């Protein structure tokens, strides 16, 4: 397997082999974080720019830690305090970052498709850290990595994704990645949060949480973003918890050893009870640890692909 993509924009465009290659590379990188000196020189002299148009702490910090463990230099740009406020366009911002001789832009943007557009206008690598409702590839990769680590395989697994599917890039990337690797995905949410066309992506739909959990090997619980206007139409948090929240009682009816995931930050008592979040089935903190390894693998692969392309052209 030879990785030759200078960007990681989404999982939709990746082949099964490419997905497996990232996961295998991440497995090798995981060990680096267990060393006394948690650093390898693989990206020494490279500059990674974190360009975040949406507030994010965990994804940005995870990328920053990953880049630093590869010995890259990291620059964080939060757009609230940058020229973006003065009206600079995304493409101009990207070209300016390129003119600084940076090597990789890691971007979070509130518009779907922003990462694809940026990648088209710069020669340096672009890694999508979440674009609108479109994709959040590294989150899905770390979910899949954690699942594979826990259950030994992806092929043939039943995975339930519960929560605000309609507005979730995490759900979309997970569906692409999991189905390509041979898992079956069921999305579960109140009807207004199931987007049209989700079945064409290869996911089944369930409106009943007990039914969705019944045969699931794993459940990925998404954050309910009650700050969004669209959710005003939906009965509030307590009612959501009653209808869809993951509780100890509901897990008792599910498969023994069902893996419970959450991309964070958790709304305790909304998406799941504290007992479940801190319980034996939960792998939420392992996801955070694995996120570093997955992002190290992605940064390493895109940087290398760009170097190799530059030398052969």
């Amino acid at each position, binding site marked *: *397997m030879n990785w030759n993509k200078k960007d990681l924009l989404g999982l939709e465009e990746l082949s099964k082999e490419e997905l497996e290659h990232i996961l295998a590379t991440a497995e090798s990188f995981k*060990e680096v974080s267990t060393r*006394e000196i948690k650093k*390898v020189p693989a990206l020494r002299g490279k500059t990674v720019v974190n360009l975040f148009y949406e507030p994010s702490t965990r994804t940005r910090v995870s990328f920053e830690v990953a880049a630093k463990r590869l010995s890259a230099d990291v620059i964080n740009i939060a757009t609230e305090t940058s020229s973006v406020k003065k009206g600079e366009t995304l493409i101009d911002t990207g070209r300016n970052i390129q003119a600084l001789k940076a090597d990789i832009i890691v971007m979070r943007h509130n518009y779907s498709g922003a990462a694809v557009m940026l990648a088209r206008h710069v020669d340096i690598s672009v890694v999508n850290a979440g674009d609108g409702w479109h994709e959040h590839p590294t989150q899905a990769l770390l979910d899949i990595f954690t699942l594979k680590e826990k259950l030994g395989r992806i092929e043939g697994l039943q995975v339930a994704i519960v929560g605000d599917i309609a507005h979730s890039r995490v759900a979309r990337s997970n569906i692409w990645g999991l189905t390509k690797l041979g898992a079956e995905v069921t999305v579960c949410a109140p009807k207004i949060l199931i987007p049209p066309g989700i079945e064409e992506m290869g996911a089944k739909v369930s409106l009943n949480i007990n039914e969705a959990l019944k045969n699931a090997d794993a459940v990925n619980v998404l954050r309910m973003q009650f700050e969004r206007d669209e959710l005003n139409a939906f009965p509030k948090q307590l009612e959501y918890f009653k209808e869809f929240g993951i509780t100890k009682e509901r897990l008792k009816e599910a498969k023994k050893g069902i893996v419970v995931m959450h991309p964070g930050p958790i709304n305790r008592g909304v998406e799941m009870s504290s007992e479940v979040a801190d319980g034996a089935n939960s792998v939420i903190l392992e996801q955070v640890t694995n996120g570093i390894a997955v992002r190290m693998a992605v940064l390493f692969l895109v940087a290398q692909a760009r170097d190799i392309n530059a*030398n052969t052209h």
Partner: protein
Amino acid sequence: MREKAKILDPEAINRAMMRIAHEILEKNKGTESLCIIGIRNRGAYLAQRLAERIKKIDAADVPVGVLDITLYRDDLTLIASQPVVHKTEINFDISDKNLILVDDVLYSGRTIRAALDALVDFGRPKSIQLAVLIDRGHRELPIRADYVGKNIPTAQTETVEVRLHECDDKDEVVIIEK
């Protein structure tokens, strides 16, 4: 690509490994504070073989580790195809150990340079000694081996291929002419 000569057969490889095992024990006066780390891929198999031979001679278990040096290479951007990053598995503390670093072929010395950089990230061994099955010359860095299976003078247009039954179905060392 033409196979020019067979340098070692299975018996010769076995004898070389046995001799190196004896030399390691002689130089380090036994197995106390000894550990062996092989460089992926073939160095890792040779490290395992050395540990087995040492156990036969001295009835002692020596910890064995595997080192992947991809992330420490200085030629990552020069090679046409990407090397795959594999796992490093060193499940013991290397500090204050006499560490035997094992590889199949010693050539430019750059792999060993990368391995030395990697090892110091794991701790501070008392000493690092280098064991190789083949030393083919043409060093580009001031590095030498402490234990050598066989010295083979080669031309730079040739390559030396070590085949081991763990990954190649047979044991042999051949020179290949490009």
